[in-house]
């Protein structure tokens, strides 16, 4: 069953239309990638899904309509957004950032266990737990953003360019951990990436977006073999 179903999603910033009726679905437990060039509407799609921008069209999460609902309510359903720019609370400590991720949860013991689990994935964050988040390096802040989302104990993670601005080695480490989180905890992920090669390595299936529309869909393996994708996005 599809965890997330999107039908005819449209969004605009003022007069400028960005999404022109997007259709896609995400299978429960899968990692699905949205690929596309700059300005294709990938980030807007994620922002539309969690109610940050106004939209038209239908979005169903676990069967229920979530389009038009407030961001806070969508988050409470278990949708965690790792926004571009990472959304760190710069003046708060690392641990305060993580605790905020679990703000909506009431199960204290499980939150404490999740904090340990997150520190297990990213030991560097444990070392920096009392440090102001603004003083963390870019890679550490990205780890913090992913960890903050994990603290929600989400059913779906929306990841906006997690590789952006990171050294290749750090990206590799981060993507390995994302894979592990997906496999061990069955957290579904919707991944937006400009780095198509990287995204197709991690994802099960993918959609190619051009100027606010889906132009190609298929399994990651199929898209990797597609000539147009290869030439335009993989560069060989």
């Amino acid at each position, binding site marked *: 069953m599809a965890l997330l179903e999107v039908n005819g999603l449209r969004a605009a910033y003022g007069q400028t239309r960005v999404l022109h009726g997007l259709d896609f679905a995400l299978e429960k437990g899968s990692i699905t990638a949205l690929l596309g060039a700059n300005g294709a509407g990938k980030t807007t799609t994620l922002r539309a899904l969690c109610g940050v921008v106004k939209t038209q069209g239908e979005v169903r999460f676990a069967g229920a309509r979530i389009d038009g609902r407030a961001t806070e309510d969508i988050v409470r359903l278990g949708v965690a957004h790792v926004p571009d720019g990472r*959304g760190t*609370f710069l003046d708060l400590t690392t641990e305060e950032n993580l605790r905020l991720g679990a703000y909506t949860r009431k199960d204290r013991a499980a939150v404490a266990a999740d904090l340990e689990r997150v520190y297990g994935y990213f030991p560097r964050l444990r070392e920096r737990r009392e440090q102001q988040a603004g003083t963390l390096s870019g890679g550490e802040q990205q780890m913090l953003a992913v960890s903050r989302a994990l603290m*929600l104990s989400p059913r779906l993670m929306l990841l906006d360019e997690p590789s952006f601005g990171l050294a290749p080695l750090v990206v590799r480490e981060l993507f390995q951990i994302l894979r592990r989180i997906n496999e061990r905890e069955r957290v579904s992920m919707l991944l937006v990436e400009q780095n198509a090669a990287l995204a197709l390595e991690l994802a099960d299936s993918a959609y190619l977006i051009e100027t606010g529309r889906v132009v190609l869909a298929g399994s990651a393996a199929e898209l990797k073999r597609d000539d147009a994708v290869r030439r335009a996005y993989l560069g060989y």
Partner: protein
Amino acid sequence: MDAFLFQVLAGLATGGIYASLALALVMIYQATHHVNFAQGEMAMFTTYIAWSLMDAGLPYWPTFLLTLMVAFLLGVAIERLVIRPVEHAPVLAVVVVFIALLVILNSVTGWIYTYTLKPFPSPFPEEPLWGIRYMSPHEIGAIGITLLVLVALYLFFRFTPLGLAMRAAAQNPQSARLVGIRVGWMLALGWGLAAGIGAVAGMMVAPIVYLDPNMMGGVLLYAFAAALVGGIDNPWGAVLGGFLVGVLENLLGAFVIGNELKLSVALVIIVGVLLVRPSGLFGTVHVTRV
């Protein structure tokens, strides 16, 4: 020397009251980047509510607590009903709303209670405490209450999930929404807390200046000066600024310029800070790329 010490200590007592009100200003400024010009009148109005309760026969401390609750609800209500609709309005529109609030609260109070001065009781004993002759029991008590409020606020913001959520909402509303925080309600809560702090300041200053609809005018000016000295975005700075302004005002009033010109000290401080160090002693300097 005795006179000097006397003035410094009396300055600390009023300084505590300025500090409370300055803190209320800073709290709302941090969350919304607006300076609430009606903060003083809100405090004055709630002090009148306290007066009514005591007039009806309620003892001091139950009145004190009840007034805090009423002030909190009043603050929340003002944010929800008056401030929220102008959330996205230009700065000047918001300023006009604040000034309107100031005038309305002032006149409504005058209309209900008249403009005659009313004595307001102090909860502290008349005779000197612990043989201290430099400060009146009310001054000592006011400082004590101020410090108590500060400590309670610190503990709330530092150690409770709700306090953390309020800080997060003030710092980064967008991210706060993305972790499920209801940012609008956090703002309302901030207003409620600020109104509560203001009510404490009002009830502590009223026994000194007598209760009257215009009693907070001067206090608000000093609180502005205090918030600016400390840095309008730094709560600790505002508190320190409050005590500093209180002492400075008293010393200058007693030994340099005389009591009649005391209020101008606040204005001189405001202009001076804005000219020399606009971000205050502990504020952050904001740089905008143009």
